[in-house]
């Protein structure tokens, strides 16, 4: 038999557990049930402890039964406390899972001599012992038991999600529609809860409570920052989970720390990275978009200032650069950047230390002025007094597309604006 290194089995265990969690976690996050997932992964502990005590072993079947039972009890109790006993929902979750988790810890510590399960195992798991926990067939070793269990669980999860994909998708995005097309939403809810319980139990002893909670919630939420398509979100969530398992393992040996904890740190890192850099939802990309918009607005305002001046003096007006920058009505540094960008686009030209519009600049500026005055006229037609139309036009002028401009032109005609100023012709 080929000798496979211990680290391989540990990493594989982590990868299998995180793949299952990422798959299910996506649905939990989408259905706003993250906290129920959190509660469930804490609350199955007494089930596992009782199964340990009764069966005296780590056999998966009694543990699964015990955990699923308590998973179900959690779901039912949270609902019953909320609906029948009129406890607020979040408080109800809080009461139930802390009580059950406390019960589990007490059971485990009280009978610590009899079962080989302890507080640390509950929190960090024992993924490091994976290579020695072998599944034996007669005298032959088939490889570590957790790998088989987690592999099986992943297969079951993949199968169920594939089979009920459409139902899960509709029930997650549009519960009302799910009901109207005849999907049994309650059944889907409990199916998902059962899968989460199963995954939690299977992952629990190797990777511990925290890793399960983190891997259920964080990869799904992270993937949600990157894409709008469910298939992509699921794929990304599983990928984020699995890669943090791999990287986390090596980080843990480097730091000499808990492996499960290090995997969580890595997935947390991926989340923070996504929070900053994801193209649509990321904080930096949003700041960048906002900056671009501000620059655009500042440039537009400078061009408009020049072209209005042209109109007043009836020749090519020249302004001092600092006058022009001041007319942008934005933060100084932004105005400076916008000024530089206008010159780079060759919309401005410099003559004797003064700036004026270039020919191209005048074209752009007249186009803007046309949009501005079209909108003023249009608002005035709609009944807004003429001394109130400037402000809204000032805001909207940057966003009027060519189609909208054409429509407005057709509606308003090439007249004068409410203040009697000429609307520049199109083109």
């Amino acid at each position: 038999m080929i000798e496979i290194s211990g680290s391989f089995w540990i990493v594989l265990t982590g990868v299998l557990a995180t793949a299952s969690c990422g798959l299910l976690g996506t649905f939990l996050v989408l259905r706003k049930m993250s906290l129920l997932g959190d509660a469930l992964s804490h609350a199955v502990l007494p089930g596992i402890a009782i199964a340990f005590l009764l069966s005296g072993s780590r056999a998966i079947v009694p543990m699964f039964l015990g955990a699923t039972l308590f998973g179900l009890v959690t779901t039912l109790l949270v609902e019953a406390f909320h609906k029948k006993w009129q406890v607020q929902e979040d408080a109800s979750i809080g009461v139930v899972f802390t009580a059950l988790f406390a019960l589990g810890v007490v059971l485990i510590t009280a009978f610590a001599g009899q079962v080989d399960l302890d507080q640390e195992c509950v929190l960090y798991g024992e993924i490091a012992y994976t290579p020695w926990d072998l599944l034996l067939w007669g005298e032959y070793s088939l490889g570590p038991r957790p790998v088989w269990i987690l592999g099986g669980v992943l297969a079951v999860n993949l199968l169920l999600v594939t089979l009920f994909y459409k139902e899960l998708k509709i029930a997650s995005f549009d519960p009302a529609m799910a009901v109207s097309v005849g999907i049994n939403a309650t059944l889907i809810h409990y199916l998902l809860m059962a899968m989460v319980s199963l995954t939690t139990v299977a992952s629990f002893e190797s990777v511990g409570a925290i890793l399960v909670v983190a891997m259920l919630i964080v990869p799904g939420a992270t993937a949600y920052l990157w894409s709008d398509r469910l298939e992509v979100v699921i794929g990304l969530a599983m990928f984020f989970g699995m890669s943090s398992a791999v990287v986390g393992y090596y980080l843990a040996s480097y730091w000499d720390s808990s492996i499960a904890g290090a995997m969580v740190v890595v997935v947390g890192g991926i989340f923070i990275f996504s929070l900053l850099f994801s193209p649509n939802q990321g904080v930096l990309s949003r700041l960048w978009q906002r900056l671009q918009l501000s620059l655009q607005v500042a440039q537009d305002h400078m061009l408009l200032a020049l072209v209005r001046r042209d109109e007043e003096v009836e020749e090519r007006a020249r302004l001092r650069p600092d006058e022009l920058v001041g007319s942008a009505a934005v933060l100084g540094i932004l105005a400076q950047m916008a000024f530089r960008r206008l010159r780079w686009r060759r919309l401005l030209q410099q003559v004797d230390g003064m700036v004026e519009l270039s020919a191209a600049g005048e074209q752009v500026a007249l186009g803007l002025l046309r949009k501005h005055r079209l909108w003023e006229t249009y608002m005035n037609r709609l009944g807004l007094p003429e001394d109130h139309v400037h402000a809204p036009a000032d805001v909207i002028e940057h966003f009027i597309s060519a189609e909208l401009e054409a429509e407005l032109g057709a509606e308003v005609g090439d007249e004068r604006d409410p203040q009697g100023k000429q609307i520049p012709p199109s083109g």
Partner: protein
Amino acid sequence: MLENALRFMTLADANVRFVLLGSLLIGATGGLLGSFAVLRRRSLVGDALAHAALPGVALAYLWTGSKALPVLLAGATVSGVLGVLLMQFIINFTRIKADAAIGIVLSVFFGIGIVLLTHIQRTGSGNQSGLDKFLFGQAASLVEDDLKVMSVLAGLIILVLVLFFKEFKALIFDPSFLQSLGYSTRWIDVLLMGLIALTVMVGLQAVGVVLIAAMLITPAVAARFWTEQLNKMVLLAAAFGGASGIVGTFVSSLAPRIPTGPVMVLVATFFFVVSALLAPKRGVLARGLRRQHNARREAQQHFLRACIELQEKLAQQRAWAMEELAIEMGHSPDKVKRIGRQLEKTGLVLRQDGRFSLTEAGLEEGLFVVKSHRLWEHYLYYRTILDADHVDRPADEVEHLLTPEIIVRLEEILARERGIDTEQIINLHGTGSQYRRGGRE
């Protein structure tokens, strides 16, 4: 074990007194602040905050090398508050919802904490024992200095709470009122969050980061069953919390292996369950009894109405067999018999030779019920809320709730608007009733 219990009970040992006082403080402050956290729907934010405190504890130790409680708690507060800020940031700036944001902060910060703790354990001076009690709590390890720190924190919390009680109350029940008084709801909210953070810190060492949230949530939820008034709820929650602290510490002192946090939580949960079951108004038993009482009263009133309506149909007859009543009421004879017996006991019905008849009092009550029923039918019909053949059922349900005052008003409305002589609505002396349901005239 007995020795432990004795040592505990007699309070002879100074250490026992510290531990007791400590757990009392934790439970009481948890209950006080928890009431506000729960009513403000921030229960699970406390959980996130507590989990997020763990890396702070470890980093404070790594940085200073000290295990003094103020140092560790300062670290815990900083990282806990950072966690809550990050959570708020995620909620405000991305499409991730509050539930997932809580879960992310809670699990990732906790993961970081575990990495740091295991790192300290394996590489440091080999002594992590001072830190791992922050996971599940170890009340027995409280010493005098710890208690001083906790007392100062608890005193501060209570002081601020007393000073800002009105503002917090307004924040929960009527934020716009708070604004009209010139307060910024945002700052009052931040102040409340800060107090919740301090409360978590008070309990961190004895209860642990994993379960301290329960000391905020569970006693408060238990107290909510007993009262509708905030000040009573706050005091009651503090009492439940304090009692959970003391009992929990006592129980866990019997078996030193068992950490304190989980036991305190279980005791608090016990208070919750007892409150939910037994509380006089909102309790499950009280509500069940009330429902049963109402159901019984309704059944009895239907019985009386059936008697009157039979009397209208058969004017000569004054006593009816169980079977006749059963048909009239649409119930099984057994049920009719049972209701009849109940009424017999209250003196509204007489039973002779297996036939039921109404007493004076029974007749009066029955007439009132029939009148309620029919007036309501008329009202629903004439207000064209329902068609004539749909008014019987709703009237069946409402007739039990109509008070004499409402009856008088209904009579007035029907007489004024429809010219209905409500005296004629019941006729016990004709051959059959003159009454026709809802205008099939």
